[in-house]
């Protein structure tokens, strides 16, 4: 495995990743999942990052995620 599991917070604008785990509480998992931010989906960071709120693109949906939440989303990024 040459994938790295990192927090979504570590990504920068323009980065892509695949969600591999949602570590928040149950209701967060449920909410994120049903909005389209689910395990296995690809996310693109559109804005924010660097420790602030994040704007994500998951398919055609735009999701805004608070700092604390972004921290709980683990993503895998291709090694560079």
């Amino acid at each position: 495995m040459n994938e790295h599991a990192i927090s979504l917070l570590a990504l920068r604008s323009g980065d892509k990743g695949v969600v591999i785990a949602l570590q928040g509480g149950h209701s967060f998992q449920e909410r994120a999942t049903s909005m389209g931010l689910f395990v296995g989906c690809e996310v693109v960071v559109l804005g924010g990052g660097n420790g602030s709120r994040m704007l994500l693109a998951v398919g055609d949906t735009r999701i805004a995620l608070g700092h604390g939440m972004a921290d709980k989303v683990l993503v895998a990024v291709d090694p560079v």
Partner: protein
Amino acid sequence: MTHSHANVLVALTGQPNCGKSSIFNLLTGSRQHVANFPGVTVEKKQGVYRDGDRKIEVVDLPGTYSLTSYTQEERVARDFLLLEKPEVVACIVDASNLERHLYLAFQLREMRVPMVLCLNMIDVAERRGIAIDIAALSRELGMPVVATNARSGRGGKELREVIGTALGKHQHDPGVWRIDYGELLEPVLEVLTGKMAAHPRLVEDFPPRWLAVKLLENDGEARRIVLHHTHDGSGEDILDCADEQRQTLLDEHKSPPEKVIATSRYRAAARIATACVKRPAQAGRTLTDRIDAVVLHRFWAPVILAAVLFTFYQIAIGETPYIGGTWWADTLYPLLFHPIKLAAANLFTSPDPLRTGLLQSLVVDGLVGGIVSILYYVPLFFVIFTLLAILEDTGYMARVAFILDRALRWFGLHGQSTLPLILGGVVVGGCCVPGVLATRAMKDEKARLVTILIMPLMNCLAKLPFYALLVGLMIGEGNVGGFALNLGFTQVGLTYRGLALLGVSTFSFIIALLVAKVFSATLVKGENVPFVMELPTYHLPTVRGVLRRSSEQVWLFLKKIITVVAVVQIGVWFFVTFPGVSPAREAHYDRLLAEAKTELAAARDDETAPELYEKKIGELRREHNRERIVTSYAGQLGQALEPVSKLAGFEWRMNIAIIASFAAKESLVGTLGTIYSVEEEDDALAASIARAEHGWTVWHKLAMLVFIALFPPCLATIIVIGTETRSWRWALFATFYPIVLGFLFAVTIFQLGPVLFG
């Protein structure tokens, strides 16, 4: 004739912001609140339309992403589907975002309710070059599919037809359609459904496979259903089996069933989307992304936000002809509302030139006067609600929540507090009632309570006339730098007074934030829910949609407020009318009246006599009126409080006005007018106060301004706070802390101001 065509029930479901309410309006021709802001409809709404000789009852359920029992809306929607058993469920999906919206459709499908799928926002999909094979989709899902554009009305007829046909069938679907939950879960589901099959009472009412999936998700409601519909402990048996299987999946396979279930649903959605949807090769960044790159930009976001709010503010309460809310209110009042009051007054003829009869004063001053003084604000409200509707419909409001979330969170609030607070009047001119109601969309219970509690500190419209009066007393007219932008039909400029008003609202907002910080750190318990929110695609608002929204809002406001205000006004009227002027003083007035009459009779030849008489009578009447208020219960209380209120520089006159306005702030300026014995006009009141109170320093005025800025809520607000928090303790708390807070500030300003600044 028998009533063979009883009402039939159709439910509308869908994820938030997919256009359910718009479809509801399209079907029933009613005027539901529509907004480009997820989670606007939180209660179910009902309407009716006719299909031939059938009467079809439509229920607009709250938007839900899923159908768990974790959130209130999802519970409302699910209970409705399970208990009311609608004949047909129309699932509304966003055609431009099909894959995601299928997630909910699948769950409904699993509940085996008779369904039709409504591919709404087909216009948006087409604009993006997304082509959907409707026939294939219908085959895949095993249900009729209709494409609609709820805005233009396209597809409405077809939707009615399809619903009509589905109603005719009257049969539940046989349940062959299913999602493949994979090799781990399928055997388990098999076992569970097998166990349930032995309980006819259970499987007749609830689809076993759906129940089994829910049990694996560890859903509380599903567990309750199983227990309720089985007997002899066999329910526990099923639950134990489910728990055991769950545990095995967790321990041995390290895969929480919820995750497997969700992933399977998405895989199914992705497969169907691949089969039925053709989209252009990734167009790269959409228009929305490009707009967001600027609007949510680290540097530009606050600049744009400030500009938007400032414009909002200038328009909302501005006096700019044809645009400003105040201009509309001032223009329409004499045309539409004042005549109502005059008409009411004309119903009575009083033989006594000094006194108005009790019934007359109750009806004209108490009831009609109170309602008319609220009606004055209707045009203003209309302008404000229109602006809000535009902001929401474009999709910008959701961005505001996003931009402000971090800052607001520090104060114990939430990004979603933005809309309620703006409605309540962050920028001068809101109303706490819709503000408190709008907090319903907030998921974060703690932040919601804090938002509600600071609502009374917002600048509601009713505080405006008083602000205007005091600011007028303190600051001269004129534009900043003498600048005015000429737009041909109207002039736009930044006035000093406007700037001062902005200062007042900024002040109260800062205090509100600090109060929120304190409350969330001490009084209000609970955890803050993290911020997750979907940002809708930008839409161009339509004139019709916006106007419909704003008029509906105004109407809601009126319905809520008029009755309360009427009751309250009668109460206030009682306190400022009784016990009335003492008999001895009444005799004194009678004597003066008689004197004036004799004088008039004596000077019959003098041309100016009647005019002089009228003037004298006017003065007498005002004097009598003043004495009535001053000696009333409210007046007595005001005077009794003077020793305390003096600390903040308030004299009894001011106290009376404050007490009278406790119930409805609208009457504040009016009562002052009566106490200072002037008729109606604001300018005259300012002049008359200036004359009577030449001792007032700037600190008097500032202390009052600040006190009123933090003034307690009106009765209507207290009532909504009580119903929304389901606690009268919070309602009482929200009533009294602003008085204490406001008074402390006023005293501080009044006492320290002169010392510090001379």
